[in-house]
């Protein structure tokens, strides 16, 4: 990534090891002011470690963290102006909802009037005004999460970090709250870094997503770019579904690589020397049934999964390969397993990676 203007949050070369295990291996991350960036990756990829380093709850072995032009690498968490919404919310059980929201303001020694007004405003923003004097223990999970958000935002931090704040909520509630929270943060203009292992959550909420794997950021880009052009085989696999065929490069010609696969010769944009093992992939909705694109292959249907608005077709392949199609357009209805079908797609939609 090339940043034309200096980032609001700028993590440079962050390294962290626990004993012999390297958790972060020199991570760079830039976040613009007002931006919402997700750290997306499987558990153990270092995303929570990176978040804790930015919050100051964990030190770095090497590297710097800058916020708003100021080096905060050595600052303790209470002097960083970085708010955190914890995965389990970490609400103060001995305080009421309003007292929880007021906690940071009191710690900052704001005036009583200011505290009262801020508490009122932020409880309104998260629709919890009627619960101000309740004990936080008497709240549902969704309400507790909103208290945690209001508490973190009430001190108006320069940066808000969210550590899987939806993971304890059921699916329906989660989806509604994702949209609510995104709108609230956009209205307040809060710069946010959001940690999640849920790709749908990341795609829904983010301005940009950092796909993390094994302590490194593999790709930092918009959700659309990550979905359409995954930079690595890991990003391809972690975000969205794909058809994947192992193959061998037959050489590059005019920016197109010819690949020998189990389904014959296919072509993809890229550059690989002859004989290199490669992975060829296509997003399932880019493959057309019986309407060949730049090339076509024939495959035998193994399974058809009806999903309402679309049908997922899985085809028989060699072990390790995966060939699937998502389509909304099947005029003859869902075909029976065993049916031979013609599949085709555009060369431009073909993705090519070194074999993992």
């Amino acid at each position, binding site marked *: 990534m090339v940043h034309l203007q200096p980032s609001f949050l700028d993590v440079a070369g962050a390294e962290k090891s626990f004993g012999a295990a390297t958790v972060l291996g020199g991570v760079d991350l830039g976040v613009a002011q007002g931006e919402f960036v997700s750290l997306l990756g499987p558990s153990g990829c270092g995303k929570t470690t990176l978040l804790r380093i930015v*919050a*100051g*709850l964990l030190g770095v072995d090497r590297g710097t963290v800058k916020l708003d032009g100021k080096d905060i690498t050595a600052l*303790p*968490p*209470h*002097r*960083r*102006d*970085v*708010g*955190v919404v*914890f995965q*389990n919310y*970490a*609400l*103060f*059980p*001995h305080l009421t909802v309003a007292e929880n929201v007021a*906690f*940071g303001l*009191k*710690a*900052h020694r704001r005036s009583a009037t200011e505290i009262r007004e801020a508490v009122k405003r932020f409880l309104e923003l998260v629709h919890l005004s009627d619960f101000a004097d309740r*004990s936080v*223990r*008497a709240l549902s999970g969704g309400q507790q999460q909103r208290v945690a958000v209001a*508490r*973190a935002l009430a*001190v108006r931090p320069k940066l808000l*970090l969210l550590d899987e704040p939806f993971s304890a909520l059921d699916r329906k509630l989660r989806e509604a709250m994702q949209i609510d929270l995104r709108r609230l943060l956009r209205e307040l203009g809060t710069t946010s870094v959001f940690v999640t292992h849920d790709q749908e959550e990341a795609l829904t909420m983010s301005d940009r997503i950092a796909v993390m794997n094994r302590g490194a950021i593999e790709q930092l880009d918009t959700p659309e770019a990550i979905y359409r052009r995954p930079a690595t085989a890991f990003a391809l696999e972690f975000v969205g579904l794909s058809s994947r065929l192992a193959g061998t490069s037959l050489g590059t010609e005019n920016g197109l690589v010819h690949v020998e696969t189990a389904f014959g010769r296919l072509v993809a944009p890229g550059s690989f020397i002859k004989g290199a093992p490669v992975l060829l992939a296509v997003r399932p909705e880019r493959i057309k049934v019986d309407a060949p694109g730049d090339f076509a292959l024939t495959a035998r249907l193994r399974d058809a999964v009806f999903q309402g608005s679309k049908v997922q077709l899985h085809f028989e392949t060699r072990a390790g390969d995966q060939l699937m199609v998502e389509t909304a357009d099947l005029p003859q209805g869902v075909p029976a397993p065993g049916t031979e079908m013609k599949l085709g797609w555009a060369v431009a939609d073909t993705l090519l990676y070194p074999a993992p």
Partner: protein
Amino acid sequence: MKPATALSPWRDPVVLLAVPALLYLVLLYALPLLWLLAKSFVGPDGLTLRPYVDFFADPFNWRVVWNTLGIALWVTLVCLVIGYPAAFALARAGAALQIAMLVAIILPLSVGVVVKSFAWQIVLRRDGVISQFLVGIGLWDEPQRLLFTETGLVLGAANIFLPFMILPIYSVVKLIDPRLLEAGATLGAAPLYRFVKIMLPLTLPGVVSGVAFVFSMSVSMYVIPSLLIGDRFQTLSTLTGRSFLFMRNEQLGSTTAVILLALAVGVVVGSSWLARRLGSST
């Protein structure tokens, strides 16, 4: 907040499980104790408060009450100051270290109080470890005897009762989510503020039970003062013991026992009430 219960305690058959314990305590403990204590209110002409009036008319007895309360407060304070951080260390230690520490705390409870008191006699002597150490680091010019002093009594008693302060606080600290302090930090609270506003109120229930345990045990201790300070320093307990054992004055004995009970219950209930009030107002 009180959870709604489907059955009132009187209708819930589970309550019946407490019946054996209740019978045992009432028949073999509460009734004999009441009978003993009642003796202090019965004179030759029926009910009377005469023993109490006589007791408080004697300045020596005031001294005894003061001794009792003073020593118990000091022991409780020393246990709290040492035990509170120890409980944190214990609760946050790794699994293996935690087990080792728990064993080190609980195992000495199986050594009798008499044995421990005699051991403290050796420690507190003029040529004992404490004296030698303080001379060694230059704090004392010459060896001094701590045995048969109030300081020695407080040191010995605090050691013996320390587990009863550490364990209740530990059990509360263990349940506190360490992320609460992190949350406090990210909200801009400095370490001391976090401790006062988060940790202290949340550990208060443990402190209250630890204080109640240690205070009620040290206000009524008998063997430890007998061995570590002797007859020249009387407490309500030792006076009660003397009244029954040596003076054969059952009425004086039950009077001092009632006063001791009232003081212990009063201080324990009063301090926990105060603590809860303070806790809810922070």
